[in-house]
């Protein structure tokens, strides 16, 4: 994904992290928008479940996106 793009969460590749992500509102089927990145490209800011969250690239990489 690139900043400004939106998508739908499909699933996760890291189980331990997926619990945390789901609790924070990253649920399969939920819309997610990639807002912008920090100056060195990491971490990134996304909007999910109605709020803005920053997460590291490696954390974001465990989330797979539909379309």
């Amino acid at each position, binding site marked *: 994904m690139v900043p400004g793009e939106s998508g739908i969460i499909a699933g996760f590749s890291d*189980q*331990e*992290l*997926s*619990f*945390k*992500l*789901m*609790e*924070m*509102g990253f*649920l*399969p089927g939920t819309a997610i928008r990639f*807002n*912008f990145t*920090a*100056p*060195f490209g*990491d*971490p990134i*800011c996304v909007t999910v*479940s*109605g*709020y*803005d*969250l*920053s*997460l*590291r690239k490696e*954390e974001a990489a465990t989330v797979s996106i539909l379309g």
Partner: protein
Amino acid sequence: MSAKAHVRIALVGKPNSGKSSLFNQLTGLNQKIGNFPGVTVDKRTGLCALSEHQTAEIIDLPGLYSIYPRTPDEKIVTELLVDTRSKHFPDKVVLVLDATNLKNGLLLLTQLIDLEVPLLVALNMMDQAAQAGISLDVKKLSAELGVPVVMLNAREGVGIDKLKQAMAEPGRTPQRKVFTPDASVHRVLTTINERFGVTGTYRAFQFLQQPQHLLSLSRDDRAFVEAVSREVDFFPAKYQGAETVIRYQFIQDLLDRVVLKAPHPEWKKDTYRIDALLTHKVWGYVIFFVILFLIFQSIFAWAQVPMDFIDHTFAQLSLWLSHTLPAGPFFDLLSQGVVPGIGGIVIFIPQIAILFAFISVLEETGYMARVVFLMDKGMRQFGLNGKSVVPLMSGWACAIPAIMATRTIDNWKERLITIFVTPFMSCSARLPVFTILVALIIPEEKFLGVISYQGLALMGLYLLGFIAALLSAVAMKMLIQAKERSYLLLELPTYRVPKWSNVGYTIVEKTKAFVLEAGKVILAISILLWVLASYGPGDVMEKAEETVRTRTELLPLSEGELEAHIAAYKLEHSYAGIIGRAIEPAIRPLGYDWKIGIALITSFAAREVFVGTIATIYSLGSTEDAQTIKSRLAREINPETGGPRFTPAVGFSLLVFYTFAMQCMSTLAVVKRETKGWKWPLLQLAYMTALAYLAAFVTYHVLR
């Protein structure tokens, strides 16, 4: 029904839900900081009069999103809410929800409902929700959840009275269930209920899910939980994902019915516009470093006036007391040990207050989360956190408030590393020591006529400390095995104007915590050091004046000079002097003699004491004038070589020693308070002293 006269009410909610504002509104200045047993988390409690006959003890619990904790702070909440047998278990829980972002807070709410805790919802930030165009059917929300809901604007205090009324009512447990554990585990849940004497399926389920977070469980208890888990082939990850999905289905369904109007899409426009500037790849850093510089400058410079005032006042008080009180060891202790000791604690208050005013504003506005966002990548390589930047920079002014500021770092390992390396940052107390030594060994000349060598050396020392901090952080990152994974997952809240009373409460809270907790240790050590420097074995101290007078009979000394000689003689023959002589063999490889040894001992109180001790020991009286001390030191002869005592090698060796050595009892005390034990401060003391010793040794031998 008669209500209990004294109830315990816990405030729970996600970070940024306005929980602290509410806590301040409810309790005012009736706040107390205590400890949760066995952990490093502060327990904030306060009293609140609910009605004429009823007071509540309010506990402000760390912010969290879910009953499954991510940080040590959050574990406290889990334990407190799950284990009904704990003496801290609240009579009622007030869950604070952010009305602008309801979805995000409801997960915890559904978990609390299933835990069957007496519950009350405070729907906060109603004003902002209205501004965002959000409209909610609050009655329906309350009916659907089976929990009373009070609307609130905690910042302005709107709705507080209603909330207090609701808090005064006897607690009711919610009757509905959102998530029911899988039928296959029901049988063992019943055995857990029986064994631990707790009620509720979901509560018992938590004993299965996370026994490691329930600190009160004995080894037997844990073995029991493990055994029953095996019996039904249960493992903690088995149902956790499904549980969250079920809860969010319920939440979405609920929101569909109670949200009458969603926020208009533009309401966060301002926040995004500010973010575009504050997280910009150039301006973001420029602004951040300007803010950091401002913080640094103010604790460095602005705090000086009140600090000088405090210093002067306590010195006067001490002097006045020693003239007024009758002579005797007890009164000496009071006027020269205790009073200056208290002064040594109070003197930190201006710096603490200023730093926490800034930090609190950064947190309140929502900017702190952006600081982490900007700095996370850079700091992570050193095992530090985005938030470590503020403590590290503040360390250049003073390590005491800086170490207290590490409280904002959630991850325990990153917090610990930051605490550990912050004292390497050259603080303002090193400056008097550096100034004299640099002036002594480096010529007052300029490189190419512009850059002063002395300035260059000073900058080099600051840099040296900074590099030591970063390298030590990397070393610690590799040495400490983290039990917890490091996450970022940090909410970027919408920007807000800070609420100034919250800033005030933070200042009061931090100052109180420092004075009451770290203060004890500082006072004890400073009295010990005073005793060591003022008393000696036998009657040598009583006879000091007589001895010196006889010895110097033939010298043309003025009364002032004589007094300076007596002071030097006394210090030399005090216990500190004896220890200074005793450690001489150990410090000789660094190029030091016993006189420097005494200064090393006494300056453990604080580095700048080095200057005063050196002045006393060289019979200069109580002067702190750098020029006088410098010229006296320059004349000092090393009896072994016949050359000057303070050669460049010795001077640099001392400079390096003071750059690395901990040499500050207040830092020791504050680390003890922040890590809630002696293990880390003592390790830190040992590490820094060893590093200082080695570095000074190498410096001395290379330059000799």
